């Protein structure tokens, strides 16, 4: 039986897919350009704005649904999580932009060895893709995977950040530190998305 809220839920899922894809696109752009040494600050900024606009649209839609239909149970959990996850996507956009700003601000970083960053970016790209998938399919296994991935990223971050203290090149060390931080935050938010999915499916927050 179709309820009055169902078309709105479909629209919500459409918007969530859109914002998710944009977020992934923006991070991929930022990371790839950074590793290649390209300056894409303006492009990234534009993407970030688009993501924010979608976030506002999602905000309006979810509040409209809450006002009109007073949803409960899984509808409610889905709507609440959509608000949280869409915020997470804006964070993706923001951090992607921040990464491009590093390149813009610091100038040419070709002398820096990007090994540390390079290793991490593979994991991060995998994670953000997983997060979008996880939300789209409400797959609890993917959520669990995100949690373990995030734990690994944390370990990696905690290991390599202190090592930068001993770096000879200040410029490279600073750039690395900033980018490492942003990547770690992106991983965090990806993991939060997994938790939101867990909440939608099981009703438990922070399992």
């Amino acid at each position, binding site marked *: 039986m179709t*309820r009055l809220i169902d078309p709105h839920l479909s629209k919500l899922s459409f918007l969530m897919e859109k914002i998710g894809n944009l977020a992934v696109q923006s991070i991929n752009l930022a990371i790839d350009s950074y590793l290649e040494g390209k300056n894409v600050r303006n492009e990234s900024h534009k993407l970030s704005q688009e993501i924010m606009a979608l976030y506002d649209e999602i905000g309006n839609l979810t509040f409209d649904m809450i006002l009109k239909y007073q949803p409960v149970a899984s509808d409610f959990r889905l709507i609440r999580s959509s608000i949280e996850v869409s915020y997470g996507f804006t964070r993706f956009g923001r951090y992607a932009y921040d990464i491009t700003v590093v390149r813009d601000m610091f100038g040419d970083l070709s002398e820096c060895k990007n090994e540390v960053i390079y290793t991490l970016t593979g994991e991060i790209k995998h994670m953000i893709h997983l997060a979008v998938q996880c939300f789209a399919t409400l797959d609890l296994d993917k959520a669990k995977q995100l949690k373990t991935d995030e734990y690994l990223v944390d370990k990696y971050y905690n290991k390599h950040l202190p090592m930068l203290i001993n770096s000879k090149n200040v410029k490279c060390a600073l750039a690395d530190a900033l980018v490492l931080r942003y990547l770690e935050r992106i991983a965090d938010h990806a993991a939060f998305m997994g938790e939101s999915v867990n909440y939608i499916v099981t009703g438990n927050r922070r399992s």
Partner: protein
Amino acid sequence: MSSYENMEGHYMSELQEADKMETVTKSPIKHSSTEDVKYKLIAENIVASYDGVVAVKNVNMKFRDKAVTALIGPSGCGKTTFLRCLNRMHELTKNAKLTGRVLLDGEDLYSNEQDPIINRRKIGMVFQKPNPFPTMSIYDNVAAGLKLNGLRDKSIIEQIVKGCLEMVYLWDEVKDDLKKPGMSLSGGQQQRLCIARALAIQPEVLLMDEPASALDPIATQKIEEMITELKKEYTIIIVTHNMQQAVRVSDYTGFMYLGDLIEFGETKQIFENPRNEITAKYVQGQFG
């Protein structure tokens, strides 16, 4: 969003700390073992039928003291019949049959020694459509349960009438003319008058059968405010088909369907994360 900022530590121990904070603020009702908890009213194995139709099929429910329990479910699921079993009103229906026990403070209301009249005074009832006695004034309506049951002391009656009218937030509106006919009040006021009348006989438990369904939103709001105040001293059981009302007003909710109790639990849990599929379908409006 601030909880994300709180998580900035990334250390598992911080995560655990945050978990601890969550549990403390989780629910207003302390989780003690079920043995300690005081259940004011317990319904055991209630099977009720009338005219050959079994309306309530073996329902067990426990109602906590000084709390509001809501009964929800689609039309015809047996919730009103079950409610009427609690104060022995069901036996007044034509060809009514009932088995089971209802324990009020440990005493079985259906045991042979108990006079049903006495029990109906311990458990008050309010009906869907306001029904103040048409030939009586406001004062007489509230005092009806007292006067018609033999209470003669005028000063005590006055005290009780004033107290009850105050509890339902009607005193200030009617105190200047208590001799006005009960039927001259508006619908919402009439319903509050009926609640005052039910409270006048000093019950322990108050049963309410869709008390606000015939009223406009403002009147409904007043009734809900009143229920939230009353639950500090009374045990309240409310049947409602308005789920938002159940969410606003009740601490516990029971969902009934086709005569069975499908799920019972804290209201927050029933409406945020129902465990039973039928419950989830019903609260989300997937069937009427």
